[in-house]
């Protein structure tokens, strides 16, 4: 009887801390029931805030206990973590991430297999061998045919208000480097990158946009330059029919006019298809492969730096320059967090499980070191906080079929494309940090 009472009405002492100064409360321990949950804590905290300043409106907070979001009664978490009930427990609170708003749905003719956002422009690749450029408002600007196989990945190389360049890779074993003149809405295939022997799967442009790396089913990682100098002479004959209505189709005679580019480096090492490649640095590459490994390459020296073996084939990876860690999507329903720098101890730092099917794509936030999004075959796009491995923050609903690609390059927009032939854009209202403002500036 006594014990049940204790567990039911037992009290724990907590102390609220925060890193957000505007929401600071006095540093006093409070005795709260052990079974308190985050909602009750939220009410308590709001009351505290209102005591100090009457002008503040109620804010929703998330509470971090022992580095993990409180998603269950406090005592359960404490028991799980083996924390003594007698100590004063530090409860950190952060303003709850605002709910992403569904913004737009971009309809395509076929499965969308690749998407990349730079500033306000959304570049998508389709299974009908075409590329599309959309504005952030959802207007279709350009349809770019050119590939002879499904486009598997796209990436912006550079973007200025007047001219943009991007790269696309496809099943037709080529990567194409395009130049897009925004003003007259014309696009040119500057280079066709030939060298891969089988379908290409991924492409990545390094941070200063000088190099790009591609990988595919021929297990080779190839590094190319993104320079378009050779082709400056080759005049772009594509006509930008701005007069035409919404859908504009660029006329590209790519094969005849574009120049063939060859890789500056070919890196051999993977045993099976390379599923994704990211630049972690200007001269450092990370790849994930179907052969169950992650590899770190030195692009300067052209060799493998380190290798991490997993249990399943990797489908995608994303590297965050903020926390220097890597999240991977593999042939199961888990998202795994790796730290490429550590080679000792358990390689998997954390596992995020909520998807019910293969996770096809993951992407870190560029502004928040804890946030990332993932898209999976269960037609779900989830927003995660790396401190909450059991439950995602939000489920970005909308897709009706397999999600094949997600992108969060622009911190304001979470973009995902899938087998339902749509690209869905969610607006992230949370942009507190500098990067976000920068991005906005860029966009503006």
């Amino acid at each position, binding site marked *: 009887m006594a014990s049940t009472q204790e567990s039911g009405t037992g009290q724990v002492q907590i102390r609220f801390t925060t890193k957000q100064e505007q929401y600071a409360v006095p540093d006093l321990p409070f005795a709260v029931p052990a079974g308190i949950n985050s909602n009750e804590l939220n009410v308590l905290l709001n009351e505290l805030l209102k005591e100090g300043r009457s002008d503040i409106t109620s804010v929703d907070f998330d509470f971090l206990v022992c580095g993990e979001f409180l998603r269950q009664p406090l005592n359960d978490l404490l028991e799980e973590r083996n924390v003594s009930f007698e100590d004063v427990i530090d409860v950190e609170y952060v303003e709850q991430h605002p709910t992403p708003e569904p913004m737009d749905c971009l309809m395509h003719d076929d*499965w969308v*297999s690749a998407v990349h956002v730079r500033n306000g422009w959304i570049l998508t690749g389709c*299974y009908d061998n075409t590329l599309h450029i959309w504005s952030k408002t959802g207007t279709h600007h350009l349809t770019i045919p050119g590939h002879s196989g*499904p486009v598997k990945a796209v990436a912006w190389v550079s973007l200025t208000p007047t001219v943009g360049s991007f790269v696309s890779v496809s*099943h*037709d*074993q080529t990567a194409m480097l395009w130049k897009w003149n925004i003003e007259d809405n014309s696009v040119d295939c500057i280079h066709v990158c030939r060298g891969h*022997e*089988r*379908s290409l799967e991924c492409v990545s442009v390094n941070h200063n946009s000088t190099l790009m790396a591609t990988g595919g*089913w*021929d297990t080779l990682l190839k590094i190319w330059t993104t320079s378009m100098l050779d082709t400056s002479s080759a005049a772009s004959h594509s006509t930008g029919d701005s007069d035409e209505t919404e859908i504009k189709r660029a006329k590209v005679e790519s094969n005849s006019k574009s120049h063939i580019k060859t890789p500056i480096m070919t890196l051999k090492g993977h045993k*099976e*298809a390379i599923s994704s490649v990211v630049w972690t640095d200007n001269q450092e590459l990370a790849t994930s492969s*179907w*052969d169950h490994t992650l590899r770190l390459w030195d692009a300067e020296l052209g060799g493998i730096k380190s290798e991490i073996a997993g*249990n*399943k*084939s990797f*489908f995608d990876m994303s590297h965050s320059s903020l926390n220097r860690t890597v999240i991977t999507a593999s*042939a*199961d329903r888990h998202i795994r967090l790796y730290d490429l720098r550590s080679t000792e101890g358990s390689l998997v730092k954390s596992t995020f499980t909520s998807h019910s*099917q*293969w996770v*096809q794509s993951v992407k870190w936030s560029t502004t928040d070191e804890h946030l990332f999004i993932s898209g999976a*075959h269960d037609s779900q796009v989830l927003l995660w906080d790396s401190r909450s491995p059991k439950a995602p923050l939000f489920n970005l609903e909308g897709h009706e079929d*397999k999600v*094949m690609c997600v992108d969060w390059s622009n911190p304001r927009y979470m973009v995902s494309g899938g*087998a339902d032939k749509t690209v869905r854009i969610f607006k992230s209202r949370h942009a507190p940090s500098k990067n976000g403002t920068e991005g906005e500036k860029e966009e503006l």
Partner: protein
Amino acid sequence: MVVKQTVNIDSCKALTRENMATNRAASKRKLEKVEQNGKNNALTAQNGAEESDEEDYLQTISDVDSSDQEGDQSGSDESEGELENIDEDNTEDSSDADSEEGENESDDGEEEDDSDVEEEDENEEENDSEDKSDLEWESDASSEDDAENLLKNVKKVTKTKVKSQDSTLATESNESASEEHLDPSKSINSKDSKDSNVQGTSKDEYESGDTSDEEDIRNTVGNIPMNWYDEYPHLGYDWDGKPIMKPKTGDTLDFFLKRMEDPNFFRTVKDPQTGQDVVLSDRDVELIKRLQSGQIPDAAFDDTAPWVEYFTSDVMKTPLRKFPEHKRSFLPSKSEAAKVSKYVHALKMGWMKTRSELAEEQRKKREKNFYMLWGADDNSVEEMRRIENHLPAPKRHLPGHAESYNPPAEYLLDKEELRQWKKCQETPWKRKIHFVPQKYKSLREVPSYPRYIRERFLRCLDLYMCPRALKMKLMIEPEDLVPKLPSPRDLQPFPTTMSMVYEGHTDMVRCITVDPKGQFMISGSDDLTIKVWEVSTGRCLRTINVGGVVRSVCWCPNQALSIVAVAADRKLLLINPGVGDSLVIAKTDLLLKEEPEDSSVIPERVKAAVQWEQAKDEEWASGIRVVINHFKEIKQVTWHGRGDYFATVMPEGIHRSVVIHQLSKRRSQVPFSRSKGLVQCVLFHPVQPMLFVATQRNIRVYDLLKQEMVKKLSTLSRWVSSMAIHPGGDNLLVGTYDRKMMWFDLDLSTSPYQTLRLHGTAVRGVAYHKRYPLFASGSDDRSVIVSHGMVYNDLLKNPLIVPLKRLQYHEPNNDFGIFDVIFHPTQPWVFSAGSDKTIRLYS
């Protein structure tokens, strides 16, 4: 007569004297005398010889003796006739003596005897004083007096005897016999003791006080069982080495007569040494009588004399000895204690055994050993059982209220119940209670219970008949019977869940194949199309109409070619799917564009069955490159590992059901001239030039180089559906329509190493993984069962087979479930083609 006797005695004396002197000359002289005096002297001489140990002398005597004997013999022969019936009991010697002096009167004989006795006495005397070198006449004289005394005694005895004897039978022989028994041990000295003078001496024997040396040693055979001489006429040998002849034994009549007539018969015994009868003296008889009656043999001993206690048990006041007892006499001896403990230890350890134990051992050794044939070896088991597994006696039924002398009213039987009870007279066991409850006012009024004895008896029977065995209940859990297998958790990775559905076909998907890289997959369906899929996304990349029900597709294993063999009804199509390496695609197209020059003549038999045909233009556009027309419906197509040869199966083709095609030469051949049955499927060995041909019940293994059958595997099932071979080539997996799956270890045996009945319905597809130790089977129950099938390099280790996972995701469409299963070439993923128009990927 008396004078003569004295002379005799004198001569004897003289002889004796000479004897003692042991003078050779004297002996010679004596010899002369002996010759003069006759046998009597001779005998004495011999007596003397016995005493003295002079061989020479003895020799002479014996010579004389023998000569005498001869004379005696002749003499005796004459007289025998007269004396025969008189002295039967006598020995020959005595009879001889009798015969010589038979005519003499009894007195005379007596006198003779007396003298003999006397002489003997003298001898004895001399014996006593043997050590003395000189013998004096005085002593002799004294001995003479003694002898005379004795003589008188003997005379007296003999006279009384003679009186009692019958006059006719009172012969010397009788006398001699009577005297013989006086001393059985010294009855007769020699066979020629005509005068039997020695016999009288026995009396003196004990008097002289020396008996030990006086044993009868006439017989020299020693102390042996005399029955050794039973078969011989003699009884041993005397000192001269002459056999001592057995005395004559009379017949029963003689014996009877003797018993009737001889008053001494009762005291006559036989001397085993000499075989002669000895008549015991009165003293002997008395001695025997005393012994028999349990009295002390010595009549003179006074057993009632007062007891003189020399050492008393009373403690005397003053010690016998002056000094006190030493301390150690009070203490137990240490050395003895050590010895005792040593013995005790030895006894304990069994090194030493007590007499009783030894005796027991001996007894056991002597005894026959019996073994318990049917019983337990030792009873201890049964004894221990009584203690450990105690069998309680059956419990008695406890008395209830009905048994009470004053039961509650509801227990008393009413009329109906009583009638019911009585009705069961013949079948008492049907009654609810075996008695009629009755009510009494008080316990005092309860009458004696008539069934008491009966019930006691039944109780005893219960106890007696109670089964004495414990019923052992064997609890076997079904899990215990299953062999211990490793946990599936340890055998990862293997497909555990469905990951992808490939939707697009509009009819049942019958067959699937995956490209060697694992990027694409091709499926053939009843909707007359094949579809090319991207494995990782489930995207259908191409659809090719083939104009027939696709029953089998197979991707060419040669990675330098981009060809898929598709069996569509009666056509086999070689299709370039156009996915993968564009260079390879182009090369393949180039290769297949032109028909190679074929100079060889195709046999009619093959031509009738198979015709190669270049694809038409519209076909070419859709990817079809070569069409091979078959004369029957093709059920299966399979490639050889190199990618040049492929085989097609037409189950209805009878003798031409298997055709092997060569891509590079565009040639076909029919390897089997006679069908061994309805061919279901064929399979190339991954490394060796071998072909597996599965008919309905058996699988035949053919060597393609030698063109002969190597092995015949019997599946013991009704209908084989599919086959798969392990990439190592030594293990074969066979699925059958009768729900079984068989694993053949080709090195082990021609019968299945293991038969798996995992599916509830027909197994339609089986597959091995190329890299992982996995195999899978798909069946009509819409489930794919993934199993771990580890093949070890160690030839002694059998493959380990562990069913891992049942994957049932296909939706029911018709009676069919899964048609085909295939593994991804590199990943631990498995595909299944189902009748619900989908293909599913499990990872």
